[in-house]
């Protein structure tokens, strides 16, 4: 079943975040082992922190981040096109080294966060393996936890990238030849574990179980939700409907609806439904279609991906 689900994910160009997933070290990752990450099999020396499909107008890449570095594959996971090794010597002794947070941005960039708080911007050509590191953004104090981008058609100069870190700090960026920092939201309320961007609204999930909505341009707090009793692991937004999905360690997965009225500048969030995945600490949750009619979740020690559909 997981393998089937994986194909499903591949066809809808979505991804899974699987914090406790593991996979092969360094360069020797095979297609079969890519599936093994879905089955959460811990067999080797380097733990994969995140895996996501990056959808750019010209191509789709599967990007994996781990303790050793960043791997980029063709969308079906068959060929590895790029490998970026992390330099462990830069960090102080005792500090863990890893990459975490993946997002496609603008026309041709893929952004990946690191434990040092840097955001690496890679320039992706239309085809081939000539991927280059074009920029390093150094604004975060803590390790990067998540990166989100918005790829919709939008007016020139609007914010299309947001990055989050361990201390709870958020940065909103404008992509381009050189990425510009637009607003910076200072850390408050613990680690920001997950972040999404929708219609110029930053949706942030925290270790404390809170979800907050911020105006990306100004950094103003617009809503605060006591959403979960434990650490939030995953957020996802269905871009067409404005539905929001949240999954946490309290074994609950919730669906919310975001509304954004450009005339009155009203930003609202409404609770739609909650499902309990019995005795499962949820560590990955994704919508399976842009409308948000179906979603899939997985959890720690769980070898299954559970899919929910709206009837």
């Amino acid at each position, binding site marked *: 079943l997981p393998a089937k689900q994986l194909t499903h994910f591949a066809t809808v160009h979505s991804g899974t975040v699987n914090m406790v997933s593991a996979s092969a070290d360094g360069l020797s990752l095979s297609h079969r082992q890519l599936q093994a990450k879905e089955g*959460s099999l811990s067999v080797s020396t380097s733990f994969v922190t995140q895996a996501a499909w990056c959808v750019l107008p010209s191509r789709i890449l599967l990007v994996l981040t781990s303790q050793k570095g960043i791997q980029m594959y063709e969308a079906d996971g068959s060929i590895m096109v790029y490998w970026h090794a992390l330099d462990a010597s830069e960090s102080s002794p005792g500090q863990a080294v890893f990459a975490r947070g993946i997002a496609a941005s603008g026309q041709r960039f893929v952004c990946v966060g690191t434990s040092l708080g840097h955001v690496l911007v890679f320039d992706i050509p239309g085809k081939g393996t000539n991927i280059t590191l074009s920029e390093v953004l150094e604004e975060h104090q803590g390790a990067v936890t998540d990166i989100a981008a918005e790829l919709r058609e939008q007016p020139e100069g609007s914010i299309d990238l947001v990055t989050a870190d361990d201390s709870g700090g958020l940065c909103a960026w404008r992509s381009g030849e050189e990425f510009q920092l637009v607003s910076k939201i200072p850390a408050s309320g613990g680690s920001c574990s997950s972040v999404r961007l929708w219609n110029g609204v930053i949706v942030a999930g925290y270790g*404390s179980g809170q979800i907050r909505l911020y105006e990306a341009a100004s950094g103003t707090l617009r809503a605060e939700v006591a959403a979960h*009793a*434990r650490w939030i692991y995953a957020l996802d937004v269905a871009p067409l409907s404005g539905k929001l999905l949240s999954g946490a360690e309290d074994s609950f997965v919730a669906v919310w609806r975001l509304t954004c009225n450009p005339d009155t500048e009203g930003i609202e969030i409404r609770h739609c439904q909650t499902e309990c995945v019995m005795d499962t600490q949820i560590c990955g949750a994704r919508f399976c279609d842009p409308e948000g009619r179906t979603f899939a979740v997985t959890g720690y020690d769980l070898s299954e991906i559970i899919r929910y559909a709206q009837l």
Partner: protein
Amino acid sequence: MSTRTLPLLFLNLGGEMLYILDQRLRAQSIPGEKARKVMNDIIATMFNKKFMEELFKPQELYSKKALRTVYDRLAHASIMRLNQASMDKLYDLMTMAFKYQVLLCPRPKDILLVTFNHLDAIKDFILDSPSILNQVDETFRQLIDTYGSLSDGEFQLIRQTLLIFFQDMHIRVSIFLKDKVQNSNGRFVLPTSGPVPWGTEVPGLIRIFNSKGDEIKRTEFVHGGNYLLPLREGSFDLYGDRVIKLGTNMYSISRPVETHMSGTAKNTASRIKENAAPNPLAKEELNFLARLMGGLEIKKPLGTEAGFRLNLFTTDEEEEYAALTRPEELSYQVVSIQADQDQERNEELSRIMEEFEVAEQPRQSTSKGADLLAMMDEL
């Protein structure tokens, strides 16, 4: 992942080991003086200064098998002997208990309170030995120094590292099954009621602000869980009320130590895979063991002192039966046999094993089960 995980893993598993040994020593009616000596000897070895120094150096976690070797040695730091089946059971119980505590700990940071619960209890086990007490307090201070200033994110990384270590272990433990905190499939029950973690709100409230930052609307929703606010935060000081109960002693005479072995199909498959995969770390791991155990100073027991054998099962027959029926893939010895095939590793391994032998007691002094001891030697 986090290179600060090993001390917490070691101390908590060690704490669980001491709880179980304490309970079995009573159940087997070992004379008070002998039992006290065993507990004091093991605690003194566990908190040895040199050993703690090695332990607190930033490093990656090693495999379950490598770590088991350390506890094997630790359990034999005194005049007590455990045979293979009892040692297997002891290690299963320790690991499942700590997996439960890591999984259930409310905030990532509370993993430190779980550790403090263990250390508090260990201090109560020490009898008439200010120097051993001092060793434990020294470790206490080292924990506060090392972990006191870490952020939530770093603690979560430690917790994730521990969870990865315990992934796919689903051994059923009767005390957990009876308390209904474990399901028959080996998974733990996650409560959806009770106090929320310190610093977390009870879920169910949405607050909306306008662009000036004023609150303009409040709505409530039904979350599905039934939570309360916690009364207070546990103490992270040397002495204090830890508030959370995870990591305290759950065994007593009326609640004996027992396991149900379960090798579910999934579990079995993944273990075989783990064992069959060539382990590039094997050599590094042996070096780690050599270094770590170099710090485990084991006092040679006096030849005149009578040793005894501890049984983790109710009767000797049960123990023998468990040894015979334990699924092969659950045996922790599989890899050492594989390692034997490698010439280079073999030398290293036999060197370590020789160090074991030194610690062994003269055989004639054991009152019982010399043949079982021989089994130990063949490991």
